[in-house]
């Protein structure tokens, strides 16, 4: 009896809602073919995948590929590089935009402010291919950067992209150069939302501009800073494939090789499909957990919801 009523409710809903299902049919199919099937295909990380045999006939080897991966020597270092570069990018990616937004916010001349914003947002829209080619040019031995340092009496001309000790720094600073302007947008929006009455009240209480910044502005944008910090947790294994792939070379693998570039080289240059997939799966699994965790924390602390 109850079962029947469930079915009739279902039928009634379907009769009314079927056009919506129809509407979603194509997007669902595309997502299924190009996202869900590869997710199942990632199980080849547990196989000794041979292209000739295909996914279904290749031999099942359990965790063998993961054991090889972690005892191979390079991979633990690759993970360390990834986390190091990613953490530095996360920290600079919050600190620099916050400080710059605060400085811009103190500007009274709106024309100058607008012009500066226009210029600093610009690099975000260039691809890493273009930015990397500019950097290769500028950081060369006789490039603009070394010549500028020469003016200040710095003699030895380093080739920054071929120096393993300096490569991670170059990667992080280049990322700051490209993305900090764009990052300021969020904080400028948050700054615009701070109640002007609070400033007046603080001024009446005798607070100068610096005190106002400390006690009104910063607490005003603190929720946004906290939120962005929590959400960036999911990026802890994302050191930026596009950037590093276009800047690195075998000379700097020891400090510059990251999981994503490792996955690419294993899969498409060494043709070790299963090892490559195992490394990729390792990264996806941890990232997935971190993203879910960060969204939970963000919801609990700031009430942020994606949908």
């Amino acid at each position, binding site marked *: 009896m109850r079962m029947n009523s469930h079915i009739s409710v279902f039928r009634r*809903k379907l009769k009314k*809602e079927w056009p*919506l299902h129809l*509407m*979603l049919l*194509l*997007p*669902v199919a*595309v*997502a299924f073919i*190009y996202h869900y*099937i*590869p*997710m199942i*295909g*990632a199980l080849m990380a547990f196989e000794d995948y041979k292209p000739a045999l295909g996914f279904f006939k290749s031999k099942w080897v359990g965790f063998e590929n993961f054991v090889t991966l972690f005892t191979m020597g390079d991979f633990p270092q690759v993970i360390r590089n990834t986390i190091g570069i990613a953490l530095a990018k996360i920290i600079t990616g919050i600190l620099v935009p916050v400080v*710059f937004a605060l*400085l811009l916010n*103190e*500007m*009274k001349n709106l024309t*100058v402010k607008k*012009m*500066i914003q*226009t*210029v600093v947002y*610009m*690099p975000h*829209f*260039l*691809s*890493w*291919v*273009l930015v990397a*080619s*500019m*950097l290769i*040019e*500028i950081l060369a031995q006789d*490039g*603009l950067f070394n010549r500028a340092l020469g003016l200040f009496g710095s003699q030895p001309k380093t080739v920054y992209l071929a120096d393993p000790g300096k490569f991670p720094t170059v990667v992080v600073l280049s990322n700051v*150069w490209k993305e900090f*302007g764009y990052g300021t*947008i969020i904080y400028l*929006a948050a700054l615009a939302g701070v109640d002007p009455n609070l400033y007046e009240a603080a001024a009446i209480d005798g607070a*100068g*501009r610096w005190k106002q910044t400390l006690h009104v502005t910063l607490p005003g944008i603190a929720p946004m800073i906290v939120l962005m910090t929590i959400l960036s947790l999911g990026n802890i294994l994302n050191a930026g494939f*596009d950037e590093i792939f*276009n800047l690195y070379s075998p000379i700097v693998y020891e400090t510059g090789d990251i999981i994503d570039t490792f*996955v690419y080289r294993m*899969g*498409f240059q060494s043709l070790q499909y299963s090892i490559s*997939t195992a490394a*990729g799966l390792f990264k*996806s699994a941890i990232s*997935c957990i971190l993203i*879910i965790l960060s969204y939970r924390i963000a919801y609990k602390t700031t009430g*942020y*919801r994606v*949908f």
Partner: protein
Amino acid sequence: MVQMKSNHFDSRKCFEGFNYVFCIFVAMLCFIPMLHVIATSFSGKTAIISSKIIIWPVDFTLNNYRYIMKDMNFFTSFLVSVERVCLALIIDILAILITAYPLSLSRTKFSARPFYMWYFMITMLFGGGMVPTYLIVSQTGLLNTIWSLVLPNAVNVFFVILMMNFMKALPEALSESAALDGAGYFTVLFQIILPLCKPSIATIVLFTAVNHWNEWFNGMLYINDNMKWPLQTYLQSVVVKTDISQMTDVDTLAALVDIQGTNTAKIVLAMVPILCFYPFLQKYFVTGIVLGSVKE
């Protein structure tokens, strides 16, 4: 008392002056690399060899650009990129609209909404990885076609959520009264909702265009025939990964310098479309990013 006040005033002025100088300096740091590349592209060979160029062309010449005029590969890939962007715009926007509309309805109106929502969210949280995705793109016969660059990521879940939130904020009365007049879901979406979504569509159009213009990796992965490469993939192969070892010693230096000049010219030409779009981008991306990240 008066003394103190004027001191305070001075330090404020001092800070403001410093602030202007510092911010303008930072803005210049963002701009100089681009100016340098533009200046190099207009400079003569000898000036490039002796690395004299800073931000202004030395021995002004158009030779580098004249040389590109004869380079078929560059133009072919430029056109591939234009084709790719147009194709992606049509497919992505349509896909985003038909995905976002059902998801923007409340659960009482569309009981399967939570299921579909999670179905799409999961694609954002977890990916199959490079090799399995490559294998399926190859299995579905997209390899070496422009569709391999457009179809696999046609449903951009981030933009779907952006669009969905925008649709949710629209007054419900409009679509309800249309439904009372007998309009179906498709009619409501394309005749009532769509015209109201213009601002968010504009944002998504600009971002999709820029993303597809800038994307180079899928071109490298899925397309073997370099006459079918999009511009950024082509540039990646000639500008970033120039293989010096394949040149003979005698020609190396001369060839490298020639390459440096024409390469910078290629970089500049690839930047031009972005620069043309930039004023519009700037108008819309603030709404876009704020809509996407700060949902209350």
